[in-house]
């Protein structure tokens, strides 16, 4: 097996420089690559373009990079819950491109799959369609969307092995699998790095071929954004 294991987050992020484009997994604060984000803060790289469904909250997730003004442009589907984001966006410091969530997922998947472009109905007849080709198939209108191009993908999985095979947990899966292999280098951090052969080959969500570097994450806070519960009767 081809060994993808790296020993620490510094090694995992080797090659990261200013002005790069990153795919960053997670939905809200669920399934985000906490260790990679922390190291990006530490590296203090600037001028970043981040493609991620959300932009974190003020003091967690991608919000940490926003606080240090490391991000030049965000490509997301939803960016609420973040005052610093709002301030930078309204002041023009931060460029923001909002795109439909399914289109975001599919543009990642297209990059992973070597599909340069595809048609989707999402956004037809709206601002999202401006400057894009529109086309009819079977009586319905669609717009042409293209695969993302990114330098690094930072994803977080539940379990992984040295071959780079990944298994995700619950809804922390979200965008992580489709970002694997959608950038030049995919860095996967996992909660638990298991021995080779410990994962059932039938139950691997993402085969190691889509991952260049894998590491055991040092620490996970796994913050809950909306703790919603019901009372026991």
């Amino acid at each position, binding site marked *: 097996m081809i060994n993808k294991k790296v020993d620490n987050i510094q090694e995992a992020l080797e090659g990261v420089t200013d002005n790069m484009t990153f795919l960053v997994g997670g*939905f*809200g*604060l*669920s*399934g985000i690559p906490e260790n990679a984000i922390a190291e990006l803060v530490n590296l203090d790289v600037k001028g970043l373009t981040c493609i991620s*469904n959300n932009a974190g909250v003020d003091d967690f997730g991608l919000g940490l990079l926003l606080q240090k003004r490391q991000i030049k442009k965000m490509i*997301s*589907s*939803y*960016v*609420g819950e973040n005052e610093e984001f*709002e301030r930078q*966006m*309204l002041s023009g410091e931060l460029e923001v491109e*909002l*795109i*439909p*969530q*399914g*289109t*975001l*997922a*599919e543009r*990642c*998947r297209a990059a992973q799959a070597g599909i340069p472009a595809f048609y*989707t*109905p*999402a*956004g*037809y*007849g*709206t*601002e*999202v369609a401006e400057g894009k080709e529109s086309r009819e198939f079977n009586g319905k209108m669609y717009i042409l969307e293209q695969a993302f191009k990114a330098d690094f993908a930072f994803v977080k999985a*539940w379990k992984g092995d040295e071959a780079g095979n990944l298994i*995700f*947990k*619950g*809804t*922390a*899966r*979200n*965008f*992580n*699998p*489709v970002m694997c292999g959608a950038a030049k280098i995919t860095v996967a951090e996992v909660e638990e790095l298991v021995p080779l052969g410990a994962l059932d080959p039938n139950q691997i*969500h993402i085969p190691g071929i889509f991952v260049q570097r894998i590491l055991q994450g040092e620490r996970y806070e*796994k*913050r*809950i*954004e*909306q*703790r*919603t*519960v*019901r*009372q*026991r009767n």
Partner: protein
Amino acid sequence: MLDKTGIAQRIAKEVKDGYYVNLGIGIPTLVANYVRNDIEVEFQSENGVLGMGPFPFEGEEDADVINAGKQTITTLPGASFFDSALSFSMIRGQHVDLTILGAMEVAENGDIANWKIPGKMVKGMGGAMDLVASAENIIVAMMHTNREGESKLLKRCSLPLTGVGCVKKIVTNLAVVEVTPNGFKLLERAPGVSVEEIQKATEGTLIVEGDIPEMEL
């Protein structure tokens, strides 16, 4: 006149046996509480879960199990988790039977605007554009008028669109309205609301044919 709970209760009656349903944030989320329990329905959330159950008991929350509103949830037997691409395959591929979402404006041609007010902070469309462009059956849950008392059922939307010609039905605090090629067709009145009141609160063409029944909840 209905409150938000009443709107959710009325929409719950549109949920049929065997439906896969995607509920938007806000009033739509409440719909799950009022669906008849003698029918089989599964709730999908676009962040990657099918077969959502109720909120967890206190102390049983799992950061890795949330809905699209980022709320902690539980799952029912037969549930499944999946990635965002497969989730939107369900939506774009029209495997979800019913989508219920809120709106700022709906036009009589079925256009919907619910994501952006020029000049204000824009949070984004999330999955709404995929949902409205794909769903065969879309119900909008909203108040009939905005805070300034202006109609949200318009001849043409004034705000940036989320989708075109897609809304099939609207349930508001005042009425149930169907979107037809000729305009908004009034189907039901909210308890205690007259046709005149609905007419007054509707800027778009309102089609009133025969007696309009009061809705049953």
